[in-house]
Structure formats: structure tokens, C-alpha cells
């Protein structure tokens, strides 16, 4: 059996698995946001950055190889992850107290686990438009972290290609594939996987806000 070493633990892997795949299978999870098992690795959030044989690499995109020495829970990497999370928070508008996803949000959960008490940086308060055009689905761009899970779900699972990421750097935006640019003019439906993979509160099903009481939410 082929193995890698993750923080001193020997972890088996099969050919074709990434470092993230085999870490998750061995119940030694590495913090991640843009990764979801079964989806094409994307490597955008960099939260799963680990040190492989002394070099930084994202665990979700790196194929496992026999004898790899992988460091994840080191002080250096934890500090880097905290920095990434802080930047993700200040780049968007994350008003947790008013967000329907609060308590079930993977960004928030990752930040709790990283011990993030403050954003450290100056918030950008970017101006982003909300798309409430669709009768059943809401896009709150304030909360988008550009993980592209909805892009991959719509393209690879739903077979519709409703979403894409457009622009670069600070101008990066989630865009909708319709002539008007509005969600109402696409063939998306509320059952689509793309509507349900968002790790934050950027894509929400309307009419279900605050359905789960505080204390019973996913990460409470």
C-alpha cells in the first residue's frame, strides 16, 4: 500500500488521489473552502496550503505520491491560513449577524477553527450588486469568495453552465450566463446542485432564511 506522511501520520492513498482526498479519507482533514469531494479541484482559496517536502502547495490540487512528507498543522501554516481568512473577510462584506447562512457557513467555521478574533486589515467594504431577480434564488455578491463551486456544479453536475468567474484581482466577480446578466433569465432551477454548494451565504434559496434556530445550525 502506498502512503504519504501527514504531520507524522502515515496515510494510505490510491493512484489518482490528491493529498486532500487521502487526508479526508483518513479523517485528518486539512482546512479548505473551495474544495468539495467529487468536484474538479480548483485551488483558488489557498486555505489548504500545506508544505510538501519543504515546498508550499495546495493539498486539493497536488496528487499524492509515495513517501511525500506533508506538513499541515504547523504554526507557520496556521498563521498563513489565519491571514488568508482575514483577507477573505475584508475583501467582501461579511455581515455575519444579518446573514442567513450564519452558523452553517464554511468560511465562518474555518475562521472559528483558526481562532480568528479580528479581521486585522482595513475592511474594503466593496460595492457589489445583489441579484434578487429570480423568484426562488438569491445571489448576494457581498458574500461571494469566488470558490467557483457553483461554477463547477452548474457546468459539471447540472450541465447548464449558469455561472462563471469574471475579471481579475479586486474586480473579480461572479457572473451569470444570460444576456441580461440576471439569474431570472437563465434556466437555473432551485433543485440544481449549483444552488446548494455555496460554502457561504452568496447563493441562497429564497423564503428559507433563518429556518434553523440558533444553537441547532450546522456548526453551532
Amino acid at each position, binding site marked *: 500500500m502506498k502512503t504519504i506522511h501527514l504531520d507524522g501520520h502515515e496515510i494510505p492513498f490510491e493512484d489518482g488521489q490528491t493529498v486532500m482526498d487521502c487526508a479526508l479519507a483518513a479523517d485528518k482533514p486539512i482546512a479548505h473552502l473551495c474544495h468539495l469531494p467529487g468536484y474538479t479541484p480548483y485551488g483558488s482559496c489557498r486555505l489548504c496550503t500545506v508544505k510538501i517536502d519543504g515546498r508550499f502547495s495546495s493539498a486539493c490540487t497536488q496528487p499524492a505520491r509515495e513517501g511525500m512528507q506533508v506538513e499541515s498543522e504547523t504554526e507557520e501554516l496556521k498563521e498563513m491560513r489565519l491571514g488568508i481568512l482575514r483577507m477573505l*473577510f*475584508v475583501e467582501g*462584506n*461579511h*455581515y*455575519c*449577524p*444579518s*446573514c442567513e447562512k*450564519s*452558523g452553517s457557513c464554511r468560511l*465562518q467555521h474555518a*475562521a*472559528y*477553527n483558526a*481562532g*480568528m*478574533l*479580528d*479581521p*486585522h486589515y*482595513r*475592511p474594503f*467594504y466593496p*460595492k457589489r450588486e445583489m441579484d434578487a431577480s429570480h423568484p426562488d434564488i438569491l445571489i448576494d455578491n457581498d458574500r461571494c469568495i469566488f470558490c467557483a463551486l457553483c461554477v463547477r456544479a452548474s457546468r459539471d453536475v447540472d450541465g447548464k453552465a449558469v455561472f462563471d468567474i469574471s475579471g481579475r484581482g479586486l474586480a473579480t466577480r461572479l457572473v451569470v450566463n444570460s444576456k441580461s446578466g440576471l439569474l431570472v433569465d437563465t434556466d437555473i432551477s432551485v433543485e440544481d446542485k449549483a444552488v446548494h454548494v455555496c460554502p457561504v451565504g452568496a447563493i441562497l434559496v429564497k423564503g428559507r432564511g433563518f429556518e434553523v434556530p*440558533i444553537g441547532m445550525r450546522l456548526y453551532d
Partner: protein
Amino acid sequence: MIRLATCSLCGCFGCHMSFLDMDEKLFDLVEKVEFDRSPFTDIKSVGKCDIGLIEGGLCNEENVEVVKAFRENCGILVAVGACAINGGIPSMRNHFPLEACLAEAYLDGIGIDHPQIPSDPELPRLLDKVMPVHEAVKIDYFLPGCPPPAEAFEVLLEALLKGEEPQLPTNLIHYD
């Protein structure tokens, strides 16, 4: 006695309510601390203190003045709650020009008699954007939450009163 000052800037006093949720622990606390400026004492200016707790972000000139006075007078300054830490709900106005916010509240809103923008010289002028307190002064510790749970205040104050570094356990870290 340890001297403790608190204030609510651009907040809702919810953090102060949560502080009071320490309930019977407050009896132990008042054995060790004396309150200086605080909504609990109604003292209006801050004197020399060991610890200052700031609730709320910065939305007007007076907020900036108060937080600077706290920094000058408090040995340890703690930003308490979502608004102090990242602007919180009030910073949702940052999406709109200040003129538009004032117009909505005082000129064009529903049910407004005698529409006028308040201009009394005693009113502090609003800042263009709501900002977290760490944009104006150095903050030593942060207590997140909207509001932070009473247990988080306990953990913070217990450590600070002993002269130790506060270590908030993961289950007490909340942003909502």
C-alpha cells in the same frame, strides 16, 4: 481595585446587555473592579483606567474622540462585539453615499413631517464611512460576537484581572 471603563459607540448596547448577562458573576467582579466611565455609572468622561471595553464602531467624530480618549487613559483596550471589530451592521450604510442615507432618514422616508437634515452644532458630524475601532487606535484584544456571550466576557476579564493573556476557547468564538 482594577479600574474598568466601558462605552458604546456606534452599537446597540447589546454587548453591554450581554456583559450584564454574567448575572451572579457580577457580584464577584465588583469586588475586584471599580467602574469608571460607563453606561453603568453614567460618568461622562474617562479617567485613568486599567481596562477599557469598546462596544460599537466609529460612525461620527465624537466616536473617534471617545476611542482616542479611551486609548490615552486605558492600559488595555478591548474591542468588544462585531461593530467594534469590523463595523458590523451599521457599516452596511457604507454601500451608500452619506447624502443618500441622510436623505432617506430625514427627507424622503415615509411619514416624515418637516423634512430637514439635523444641523444642530451639538450633534457630532457623521463620518463618510463606518469603520472598526482599530482604524483609529491600537486595540490590544478582540472579543467577537453579536453580542459576545457572557461567558466570553468572563474568560476575558478573568484573564486580564490575573494579568494573563486571554485565550478564548473555540466554542466561545462567534461572529453572530
